[in-house]
């Protein structure tokens, strides 16, 4: 019985999500206020995270997010439910990030974003110390994240897309294949090669940090 419940529940959630999507899309087409709020609430964070991880530039990511939502609002009529709303929006995000990256390489000029440096825009939540974690842990995590972000930026963008969609956006292989418009085999291969490239990039920077065991080492 437990197995059957476990098996059934994801299907039900998928159906629920589909009907939610349908309702949201219909309401967006009718110009309902709550639908616009709901769409932003549901997708602004994941879309921004995805754009930021793909571009590693907050200013560019902001532009991409605005462009993505503009396209979503304008083209909601053309959404035909052949994929989920999430997959559709992520596909637009990946394409926009791709365009932005191409544009960036053509015009090598960065804008200064006032919100880019989080240290200058700390709010009260950051000032109040978190007693559950030691300052060492916090610093350690931050260092680790900075290194991973840097390594992500250095690997091939094609592999980076797949790794980000799988490991950060937590999408399934099928969803990634739908977003990137490639076969499942290609998705699998790109994820594998992306992870290996990432590990190789991290290998150099983590050699001096034995606490992070991201570099394979055999026991003596």
């Amino acid at each position, binding site marked *: 019985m437990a197995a059957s419940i476990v098996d059934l529940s994801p299907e039900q959630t998928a159906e629920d999500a589909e009907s939610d999507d349908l309702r949201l899309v219909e309401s*967006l*087409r*009718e*110009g309902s*206020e709550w639908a*616009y*709020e709901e*769409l*932003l609430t549901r997708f*602004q*964070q994941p879309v*921004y*995270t995805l754009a*930021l*991880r793909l571009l590693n530039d*907050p200013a560019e990511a*902001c532009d991409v*997010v*605005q462009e993505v*939502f*503009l396209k979503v*609002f*304008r083209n909601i009529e053309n959404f035909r439910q052949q994929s989920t709303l999430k997959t559709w929006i992520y596909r637009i995000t990946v394409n926009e990030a791709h365009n932005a990256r191409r544009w960036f390489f053509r015009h090598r000029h960065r804008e200064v*974003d*006032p*919100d880019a440096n*989080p240290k200058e*825009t700390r709010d009260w939540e950051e000032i109040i110390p978190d007693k559950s974690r030691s300052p060492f842990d916090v610093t350690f*995590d931050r260092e*680790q*994240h900075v290194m*991973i*972000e840097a390594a992500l930026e250095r690997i091939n963008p094609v592999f980076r897309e797949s*790794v980000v969609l*799988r*490991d*950060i956006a*937590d999408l399934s*292989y099928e969803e990634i294949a739908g977003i990137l418009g490639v076969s499942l085999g290609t998705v*699998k291969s790109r*994820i*594998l090669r992306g*992870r290996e490239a*990432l*590990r190789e990039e*991290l290998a150099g920077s983590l050699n001096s940090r034995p606490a*992070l*065991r*991201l*570099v*394979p*080492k*055999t*026991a003596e």
Partner: protein
Amino acid sequence: MSCDKMHEMVSSLLDRRVTAREEESVLAHLESCRQCGAEFESMRELRGALRRLDRPELPARLLEGLRTLALNERLRRLSHVGLSARAHRWAGRMQLVFENLMRPMALPFAGGVLSALVMFAMLVPSLAFPHNFRNDVPLWRLYTDPALEEMYPVDAGDETMVEVTIDERGRVQGCVVTKGQMPPEIENNLVLFSRFAPATVFGRPTWGKVLVSFRRSQISVRG
């Protein structure tokens, strides 16, 4: 399973994209091969680190921009929706008015049509009128001979033949005795009191000649 193959399997195993049998053999290999085991561990840690990456905070400028964008786009859509909705509502109202107008007439109209059909079906037989086609000229006959309709009783000789010329009104215009003898008074009576149907061409009466033969026992007419 070889270490080369393991290389590919490690990533799939992390994503649970392997079959139960493959998983079993991979795990067995990881137990036995330290190099592969370490690779698997490092890959798992990398994946965990990626998942633990901080969720970037949305810049206030972006949040504000998105709100403005949503508001503008909603207003833009409402203006479009408003136009189409107004047209739709107007069409619906017109349809309702038309239906309301037609509904009281529907039953009388249907009844009227039905009763008209019934009456027509009943009247059709009585509408038929008698046709008289007796004087019709058959289309296949281009020319008809004059015909004798009424003859003055003639007491001629044994055998007498008279060629009579008939005008378009059926009157005798000329009379020539071609065989035998005929007294002039009888000839005059024949011209005066006999009636002929005129010859016709395409149904129109015209002049024609008829040969009348008298015998003692009978009168025969040959065209």
